[in-house]
């Protein structure tokens, strides 16, 4: 599964997206765990959210294969 990255997440991953093995019915929480396992530097961030189809996603949301999934490190606009 392709996961898009922005800001410091892009720096950590070394590019604008990362690949995470997808399994049917995978939850947002499972995705976060997979991200942290592959890139432990995310542990050091103030927060790490996941957006699914342009919305902040709860941990128990199940990801579908067609969803647009994005890592949201701490925001700092304004």
């Amino acid at each position, binding site marked *: 599964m392709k996961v898009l990255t922005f800001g*410091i997440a892009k720096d950590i991953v070394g590019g604008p997206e990362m690949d995470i093995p997808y399994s049917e019915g995978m939850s947002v929480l499972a995705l976060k765990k997979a991200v942290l396992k592959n890139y432990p530097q995310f542990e050091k961030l103030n927060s790490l959210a996941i957006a699914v189809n342009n919305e902040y996603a709860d941990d128990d949301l199940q990801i579908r294969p067609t969803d647009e999934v994005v890592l949201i490190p701490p925001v700092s606009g304004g």
Partner: protein
Amino acid sequence: MEKKIDIQISDKPLSEQTCLEFVAHPGAGGIVNFIGTVRNQTKGKAVIKLEFEAYVPMAISEMRKIAERTFQQWPVQKMAIHHRVGTLTIGEIAVIISVACPHRKAAFDACSFAIDTLKETVPIWKKEFFENGAVWVAAHP
């Protein structure tokens, strides 16, 4: 129906005049504009430039949610939220929030709420460049 909310993300310089013209309303008595500009220092360290990166479709969506919440909570007549992306130098405008209300108190409260919320929820990231290095703001404790 007349458009009441104007949300923009742009890599061109922002215009307060444009926001003001959008929110202008014959029933408005008070317009409050917040203009966030690039400061020359952070905690005493000289800032050379900033870069803003946005996850644009979601940022637009979150900015619109903020405007809609603001309309629900205060008697807002019109509202504009414009955010800049790309490279900005000192003094340039990063964000403009304009709120028009019949009376000023609501306009102050609504504008203040909107910028506070924008900084918490909108997926935009700021990188500050110093003489020797750069950091993504707020990323680490």
